[in-house]
C-alpha cells in the first residue's frame, strides 16, 4: 500500500482511495439497524471535514485565529432513529477545534439532539423538543458541509457586530468603541474582544428549546421557544448554562407556490445579554429589556441545475436608557452545476448599520460591510467532495479597505 493510499484510508477517505462508492454503500447498510418489522430503525452516519484558511488578520467573521493560516478538522457523527411514523430522534456529536473554526485544542461536544413527535401522517403538526437548529430563515436547513456550496456562512450568520452579550452598553460612546467606529480611535480588533461580540444570528443557532411546526396545503408554519436569542453564542445554547427566565420566541411562516419557489417570513424576540451580565444591574432594568428583535424574509429557488437562496434580516438591539440600534443584512447566493461533479457558486453579502446619538452627533454604530464569495466545488464520488472559496470583503476591518480570505474544505461522508 502506497503512502498516499494509507493516508487517504487513515483519514477515512475510502471512496478516494478505492475509487468507488460501493464500499460506502455497504458501510451505510452496515451502520443501519432495524427491528424485524421495520418499525424501529436507526442509522449512524457522519462526515469528516478538513478545512484550511489563508486569511488577512484580524481573522474575519467567526474564525478564531491569530495566525494567517488555520486548519480545522472536524468529525461529525449523526444518529437518526425512527420509531414508527410518529417518533423521530436525531443527535449530532462533533469532535473538532471549537464550534467555530479556531486554534483551540480538540474537543468533543453533543451539539444537537432532539425528539420529534408527529401525531398525523400528513405533517399538519410536529412537536420537537431538544437542542436543534433554528426554524428562522432558510440557511439552517442547508448549513451542513455537504449541502452548502460555501465554506463560511453568509454575512448575517457570521459577521460580528460591535454588540457584546457579556456586558451591557453603558454609554453610546462605549458601543462605538466596541465597534471600532468611534471617530479618531480605530484600533485593531483583538482576539479577546472577538469573544465578546455577537452577529445577528449565530450560525445554525443550535439552542435548546421546543418547536411546533407543520404543513397545511402550500403553507408551512413553525414556532419555537428557545433558551437564547438568535444572536446568542454556542456557550449560551445549552440548558444549565442559561436560565429559562427569559426565553426567546421565534417563528416562520412559509409559502410554496410550486416546487421551484419557497418563500418565508420570520420573526424573533429575546434577550441578547447573557444572564451573568445582569448581576450588577440597578433596579428598574432587567435582562428582558436588552432584547434582540429580528424580522426576516427568505426565498429559495431551484430549477434544473440552478439553485438560488436569498435572505434579509433586520435586527434591533434594545439598549435601555441609550436607545435602540439597528442593523440590516442580506445575501443572495447562486449555485450552478456545470457537470454531475463540478459546481460553481457565487454570493453577494452586505450589512448596514443605523446611527446612534453620541453627545448630540449621529454616528453609525458599525462599519458597513459588503462581501463577495466565490466557490468552485468538485464531487469525486457520492461521498467525497472538495470545495474552495475566495472571499473579498470591504469594510469592517480598521486596518485596510479590502480583506481577502481563501479557504478549502474536503468533506468525506459515510
Amino acid at each position, binding site marked *: 500500500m502506497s503512502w498516499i493510499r494509507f493516508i487517504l484510508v487513515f483519514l477515512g477517505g475510502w471512496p478516494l482511495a478505492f475509487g468507488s462508492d460501493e464500499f460506502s454503500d455497504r458501510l451505510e447498510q452496515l451502520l443501519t439497524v432495524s427491528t424485524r418489522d421495520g418499525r424501529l430503525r436507526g442509522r449512524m452516519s457522519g462526515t469528516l471535514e478538513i478545512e484550511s484558511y489563508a486569511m488577512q488578520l484580524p481573522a474575519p467573521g467567526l474564525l478564531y485565529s491569530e495566525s494567517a493560516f488555520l486548519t480545522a478538522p472536524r468529525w461529525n457523527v449523526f444518529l437518526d432513529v425512527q420509531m414508527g411514523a410518529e417518533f423521530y430522534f*436525531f443527535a449530532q456529536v462533533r469532535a473538532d477545534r471549537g464550534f467555530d473554526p479556531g486554534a483551540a485544542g480538540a474537543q468533543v461536544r453533543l451539539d444537537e439532539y432532539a425528539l420529534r413527535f408527529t401525531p398525523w401522517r400528513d405533517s399538519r403538526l410536529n412537536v420537537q423538543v431538544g437542542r436543534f437548529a433554528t426554524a428562522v430563515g432558510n440557511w439552517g436547513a442547508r448549513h451542513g458541509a455537504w449541502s452548502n456550496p460555501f465554506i463560511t456562512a453568509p454575512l448575517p450568520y457570521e459577521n460580528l457586530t460591535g454588540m457584546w452579550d457579556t456586558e451591557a452598553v453603558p454609554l453610546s460612546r462605549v458601543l462605538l468603541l466596541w465597534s471600532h467606529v468611534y471617530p479618531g480611535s480605530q484600533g485593531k480588533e483583538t482576539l479577546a474582544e472577538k469573544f465578546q461580540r455577537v452577529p445577528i444570528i449565530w450560525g445554525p443557532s443550535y439552542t435548546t428549546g421546543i418547536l411546533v411546526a407543520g404543513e397545511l396545503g402550500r403553507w408551512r408554519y413553525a414556532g419555537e421557544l428557545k433558551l437564547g436569542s438568535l444572536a446568542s453564542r454556542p456557550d449560551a445554547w445549552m440548558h444549565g448554562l442559561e436560565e429559562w427566565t427569559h426565553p426567546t420566541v421565534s417563528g416562520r411562516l412559509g409559502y410554496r407556490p410550486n416546487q421551484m419557489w419557497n418563500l418565508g417570513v420570520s420573526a424573533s424576540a429575546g434577550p441578547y445579554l447573557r444572564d451573568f451580565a445582569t448581576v450588577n444591574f440597578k433596579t428598574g432594568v432587567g435582562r428582558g429589556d436588552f432584547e434582540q428583535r429580528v424580522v426576516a424574509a427568505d426565498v429559495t429557488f431551484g430549477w434544473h441545475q*440552478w439553485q438560488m437562496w436569498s435572505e434579509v434580516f433586520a435586527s434591533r438591539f434594545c439598549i435601555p436608557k441609550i436607545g435602540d440600534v439597528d442593523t440590516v443584512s442580506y445575501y443572495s447566493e447562486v449555485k450552478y452545476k456545470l457537470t454531475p461533479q463540478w459546481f460553481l457558486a457565487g454570493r453577494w453579502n452586505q450589512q448596514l448599520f443605523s446611527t446612534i446619538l453620541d453627545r448630540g452627533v449621529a454616528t453609525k454604530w458599525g462599519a458597513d460591510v459588503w462581501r463577495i464569495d466565490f466557490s468552485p466545488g468538485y464531487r469525486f464520488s457520492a461521498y467525497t467532495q472538495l470545495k474552495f472559496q475566495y472571499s473579498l470583503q470591504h469594510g469592517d476591518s480598521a486596518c485596510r479597505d479590502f480583506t481577502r480570505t481563501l479557504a478549502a474544505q474536503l468533506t468525506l461522508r459515510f
Partner: protein
Amino acid sequence: MKKFLLSSYPDGLSRRWAGSIYEAIQELGTWAWRVGSCLGLLGISVEAATIEGRVSLPKVRVAPVINQRYEIIATGGVLGTNPPLAVVYLEGKFAGAATPAVVQMIQREMAFVPALLPVRIGTKVEFPNLDPGFHNIFSFSLAKRFDLGRYRSDEKPVPSQVFDALGLVTLRCDIHEHMRALVLVLDTPYFTITDEEGSFRLIDLPAGAFTLKVWLDSKTIRERPVVLVRDTARRMDFP
C-alpha cells in the same frame, strides 16, 4: 466463464469430455434455432421456449432511515422498500432484436419505484417525479454519469436518460440521501425480475444455446448453460 461452467459438471466426468459434450449441445441448440427460424419464416406457427424457476434470494434488507434533521416536514416515517429481488436474463447472440422500449422509474413517497430496473442497452428511461417536492437524480457510476437537476412534476418532456453502456448504474437523490435505485443495463432483450419468493418466468425465448444468468447484487452473478428448443418449457432453479 467457461472455467466456471466446466467446473460445475459432476465429479467423475473429465473436463475434456465435459467440454466436448457442452460444445455438442451448443451445436445442437444452434441447429434447433436455425430450424425454428426457417419454420417461422415459412409462416409455420411455432411457440417460443420458456424457462421458469426459482432463485434463493438473500435475507431481507434493512429499510433505510430518512434524515429529517433539518426538513421538519417530511411525510412517511416508515418507508416500504423493495425486498431483495434478482434479475434473471438470457445471454447469447440474438439476431434482429427489436428496438428497446421506453421505460419509467418514478419517484414516489421519497423512494424510487421500482428500486431495481433491468433494461436492455440503448433503452431510454424516464424519471417522472410524483412527489410534491423536488428530487435531484444523479449517478456517478462509470456506466452512466449524469445529473438531472431539479425539475417540476409537470415539466414536459419528462427528464430521461438513454442507458448506452453495459453495467450497473446506481441512482441517488442529491436532496434525499436515503433514496437509492439500481439500473442494470444488459445486452439482451430477454430478462425478468423475480418475485419476492424468487420465482421467475422467462417467456418468448428463441431456440438455441445460451447462458442463463441471475444477478443478485453487484458482486453476485450466477450462471448456467441452457439449450432451448422451441415449444418447450424448462425449469431451472438457482438454490
